[in-house]
């Protein structure tokens, strides 16, 4: 008799367990492609350990999504008010259908990523396209529909697509209270398992401790709760949302702190950021029409491997127009950071960095200057906390720590390395005039 369950070794979760249907999905060419998509783009050029791929991250997200589902839908963890909102939990069959949908959505949530993940997605896709939209197309493709419909029980592709990409990217799919909560488990909110896995996994591979937090405790204390009182006017909203039991508040704080440290120390590292920009420049020049294809076959034909081969080929052939662009990455001839946002400059003029960038472009040519202004999107620090007496309070009213966690934002102006010394001197002589202009 064949095995019903399978285990995959994983450095973060020790074992990831899956059933036969999940094994079929993992064997699909869409999912196998993720073996060749770096989780953190070219970050391995700065942190050599960052060579992990979307493949293992997606397995991790599936594992955590299943654990969270079991915890938050456990009958002892649901209040009668919340329980009556969800007919999806009426029978074991319905409950296991939705758990399976959630795990499949978690597994497939990243299949639409372009080569090198997030790097320059906006510029490299046609208007109105995002990697989430490509993910949705893969899930709804005939090829995958056949796989979903052959499962026990058969799964509806639209349910998987909805949870995989969330309401932001699929507003046309209509989210009720139930699908909102389930998509929140994966992709959004303070406690999305996508976030949990990437923080743990990225910090493990990079070799930093910042991203760690007690995810076991956090997951154990997650609950579907009514929204916290958001003001003192009238009655409290009954909208269900993900929150924690009081005992999990410190673990939630640790997750949000981990996120802050990872953004400030790793994700917004200036050299990592300039490599993303150089990669975008190279791809815009290399790709037909400067864009990646968005159809299923076209999308599957590009992974990091094909791009790395192109980069190496272009770098070694000076006759190619892309040679210099490739050399910035392959020969590590990246632009250097000339200016980084300073609070004193920003106080004088909120457009200081932009003005400096423009002045440097005028002086040294736009082709020698690059600008970047990353900030930590998607922050929402408030969530419901259930106290021992069953009452629900806003996390921000209970935790000083949460209220003090800064949001990371910076601005960089980079310059071609050969011009760095001269431009540095020029900028120090002219900066005040530029800012006050």
């Amino acid at each position, binding site marked *: 008799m064949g095995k019903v369950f399978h285990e995959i070794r994983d450095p973060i979760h020790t074992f990831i367990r899956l059933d036969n249907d999940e094994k079929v999905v993992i064997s699909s060419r869409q999912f196998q492609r993720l073996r060749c998509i770096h989780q953190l783009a070219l970050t391995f050029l700065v942190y050599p350990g960052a060579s992990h791929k979307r493949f293992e991250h997606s397995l991790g997200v599936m594992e955590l999504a299943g654990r969270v589902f079991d915890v938050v839908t456990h009958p002892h963890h649901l209040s009668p008010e919340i329980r009556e909102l969800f007919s999806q939990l009426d029978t074991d069959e319905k409950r296991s259908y939705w758990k399976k949908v959630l795990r499949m959505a978690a597994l497939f949530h990243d299949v639409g990523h372009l080569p090198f993940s997030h790097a320059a997605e906006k510029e490299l896709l046609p208007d109105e396209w995002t990697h989430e939209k490509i993910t949705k197309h893969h899930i709804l493709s005939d090829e995958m529909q056949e796989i979903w419909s052959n499962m026990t029980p058969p799964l509806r592709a639209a349910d998987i697509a909805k949870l995989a990409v969330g309401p932001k990217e699929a507003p046309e799919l209509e989210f009720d209270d139930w699908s909102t909560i389930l998509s929140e488990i994966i992709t959004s909110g303070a406690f999305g398992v996508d976030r949990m896995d990437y923080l743990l996994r990225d910090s493990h591979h990079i070799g930093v401790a910042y991203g760690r937090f007690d995810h076991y405790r956090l997951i154990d204390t997650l609950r579907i709760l009514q929204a916290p009182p958001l003001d003192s006017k009238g009655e409290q*909203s*009954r909208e269900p949302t993900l929150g924690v039991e009081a005992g999990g508040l410190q673990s939630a704080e640790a997750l949000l702190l981990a996120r802050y440290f990872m953004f400030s120390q790793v994700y917004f590292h200036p050299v990592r950021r300039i490599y993303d920009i150089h990669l975008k420049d190279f791809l815009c020049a290399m790709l037909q029409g400067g864009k990646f294809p968005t159809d299923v076959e076209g999308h599957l034909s590009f992974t990091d491997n094909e791009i790395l081969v192109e980069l190496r080929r272009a770098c070694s052939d000076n006759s190619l127009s892309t040679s210099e662009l490739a050399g910035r990455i392959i020969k590590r001839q990246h632009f250097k950071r000339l200016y980084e946002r300073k609070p004193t400059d920003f106080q004088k003029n*909120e457009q200081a960095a932009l003005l400096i960038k423009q002045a440097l472009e005028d002086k040294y040519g736009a082709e020698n200057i690059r600008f970047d202004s990353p*900030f930590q999107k*998607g922050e929402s620090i408030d969530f419901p906390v259930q106290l021992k007496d069953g009452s629900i309070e806003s996390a921000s009213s209970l935790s000083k720590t949460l209220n003090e966690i800064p949001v990371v*934002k910076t601005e960089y102006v980079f310059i071609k390395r050969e011009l760095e010394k001269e431009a540095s001197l020029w900028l120090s002589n002219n900066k005040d005039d530029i800012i006050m202009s």
Partner: protein
Amino acid sequence: MERNNQRTILLGMIKSLKDNKSWCGETHIQKAMYSLKTITNTPIDYDFILYKHGAFSYDLRDELTEMRADGFLSIEINPSPYGPSLAISESGQRLYDKYRENVSQYDPNIDFIATNLGAKGVTELERISTALYVCKKDNIFDIEECASRINELKRHVTIDLARSAASDAYKMLQEYEKHSC
């Protein structure tokens, strides 16, 4: 719309909501900005969908977050058990003063929305913004039909409350039409 002009409209809305005794948490601001866009057709670029507590914009959430990162907005902690409020900082006030003239034509729109919604709590705003969303997106202008659609999408909102929200939303739309004539 130009970035700083849009931010100035947002700051103007926060000021006006505060003047009208709003709690001014993120949810209150979200619903007010949605109403500003939907009822008064003020050309702000934030896209809204039906999500948390009714109409919700990820763009606007990111804008509020970025404005906190830039120091234009700060969080005011409220006593337990309530959620936080957002307040305009000194540098936020400077930004507002610098760009205000560019967008002063929208002041009456902001005033109309803040006057009508400022005193309302989150649950009421949630229902009204959901009603507005349903009526605009699905082109439903019948109270019963709208109420049943709200209840279908937001099961935690009872039919009676949905009916009253639909009625409030239609009233606001009519009042704005009269007001702007």
